[in-house]
């Protein structure tokens, strides 16, 4: 790990004004990805600002009937929050599909959005990578690219965004509130992460020195018909090969509204509004789900080792939509607490 200086900050204003744009200063909160990247010499900040004491931990209802998730609320606290479980179970399920309980206890909501790809060439400083050093070339395109993207790739980068949480946030049309020296702004979730194009080193539209303050969910939670399907190499604690967040509003047999977002297939959570619009008014049946899946994967491009993802994604979409349609609203989570007679 490189040497750096460290300060703890207690107010948002102080945090924002301590950052000098482009000088290698980074914010740290959960740190689960940043510390790992620093240890691998991929991130080399000169200065870390510890923001864990800022007042951004709340999860609260908005005036518009939605829910505001504080940027510093932990992933575990968010997934198990009563209102998230009740009104946005798709989000809860997606968060709990990711990482391990220890990591979810550390990782914050803001940090989840900013985690970087797990492309092994990005992590391996002995190989060229445009995301690490722009212009170096991409080792994955002609390398072992089994976990890589099939949609929205460029000649510069075929990395995927690793988050599960973000796939659900994309499907739910969340917005990201950020604050910087120039003031506050709001970024639609679909505009937050970007495609690699010819600047693969830039993951998101967050500007240098800006801080995520919260993520806002609109009132509509699709709590009756949702599913998060995550296909991976082992049943738990692995990144997605393909994941699908599906949400439906049904009007009898037909679809009033559909949302579909994919993870593990692109540089950002992948939404296809055209396919969602196609489903609107159609009967909620596998035949239509298959057509939507074909539309979403129409432009997909496989590489030597990840061709399987195209068919896998189609099947995962059909399964997620079918299971979302058939979902019997589950009983509220009945968690019995084991009486701990042995106190720590």
């Amino acid at each position: 790990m490189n040497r750096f200086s460290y300060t703890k900050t207690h107010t948002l204003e102080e945090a924002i004004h301590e950052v000098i744009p482009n000088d290698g200063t980074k914010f740290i909160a959960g740190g689960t990805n940043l510390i790992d990247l620093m240890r691998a010499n991929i991130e080399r900040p000169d200065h870390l600002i510890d923001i864990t004491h800022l007042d951004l931990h709340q999860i609260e209802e908005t005036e518009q009937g939605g829910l505001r998730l504080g940027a510093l609320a932990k992933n575990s606290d968010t997934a198990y929050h009563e209102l998230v479980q009740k009104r946005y179970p798709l989000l809860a399920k997606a968060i709990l599909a990711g990482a391990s309980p220890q990591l979810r206890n550390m990782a914050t909501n803001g940090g989840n959005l900013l985690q970087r790809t797990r492309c092994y060439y990005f992590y391996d400083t002995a190989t060229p990578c445009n995301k690490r050093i722009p212009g170096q070339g991409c080792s994955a395109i002609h390398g072992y690219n089994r976990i890589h993207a099939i949609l929205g790739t460029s000649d510069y980068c075929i990395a995927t965004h690793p988050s599960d949480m973000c796939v659900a946030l994309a499907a739910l049309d969340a917005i990201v509130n950020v604050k910087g020296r120039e003031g506050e702004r709001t970024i639609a979730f679909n505009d937050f992460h970007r495609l690699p194009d010819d600047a693969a080193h830039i993951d998101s539209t967050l500007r240098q020195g800006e801080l995520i303050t919260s993520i806002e969910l609109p009132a509509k939670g699709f709590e009756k018909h949702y599913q998060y399907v995550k296909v991976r190499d082992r049943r738990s604690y692995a990144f997605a090969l393909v994941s699908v967040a599906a949400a439906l509003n049904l009007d009898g047999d037909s679809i009033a509204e559909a949302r579909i977002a994919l993870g593990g297939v692109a540089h950002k959570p992948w939404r296809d509004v055209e396919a969602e619009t196609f489903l609107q008014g159609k009967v909620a049946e596998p035949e239509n789900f298959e057509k939507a899946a074909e539309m979403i994967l129409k432009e997909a491009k496989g590489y030597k080792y990840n061709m399987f993802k195209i068919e896998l994604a189609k099947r995962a979409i059909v399964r997620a939509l079918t299971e979302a349609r058939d979902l019997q609203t589950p009983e509220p989570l009945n968690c019995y607490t084991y009486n701990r007679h042995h106190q720590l």
Partner: protein
Amino acid sequence: MENIAEIKQPGIAQGQQPASEGQLLPVQLNINGKNYLLHLEPWTSLLDALREYLDLTGTKKGCDHGQCGACTILADGKRINSCLTLAVMYDGIPLTTIEGVAEGDTLHPLQQAFIDHDAFQCGYCTPGQICSAIGMMKEGRAQSSNDIHELMSGNLCRCGAYSNIHDAIEQVMEENINPEKK
């Protein structure tokens, strides 16, 4: 604050210069009910602070990468990977390591259950497994045998003692619900 043991880094205690110009930050760590005042370089991980500067070597370094769970400890009662965080960020936050789970000579029920079930071979992952299981029980989200598998997935055991680890944890959870089973 009577209870503070001041510990300096070995190199610095001997009057040597720190390895770099980096700042040394005072950090008060509260571990297993005891306070320690250390002066640490900011890049010292919480795991290294425990092992290298406090001789609390019960917490293990496996992958140093957040993937194996051998470094699991409890911070404010919640299980975390101590390798993926900086010691300076845990100033004043109560920490529990494997050294602090027994009460005197009485083992924590999970420690006893691990022995009874032969829930380890080499034992390297065991402190992390036990701290993780304590954290899981406190969270109260595990409702079934499958839940235990899922919610313990952050702890790897390269010896493959999983089935006995699972049984040890399940037994303690059952005893907690129904003390007659003991």
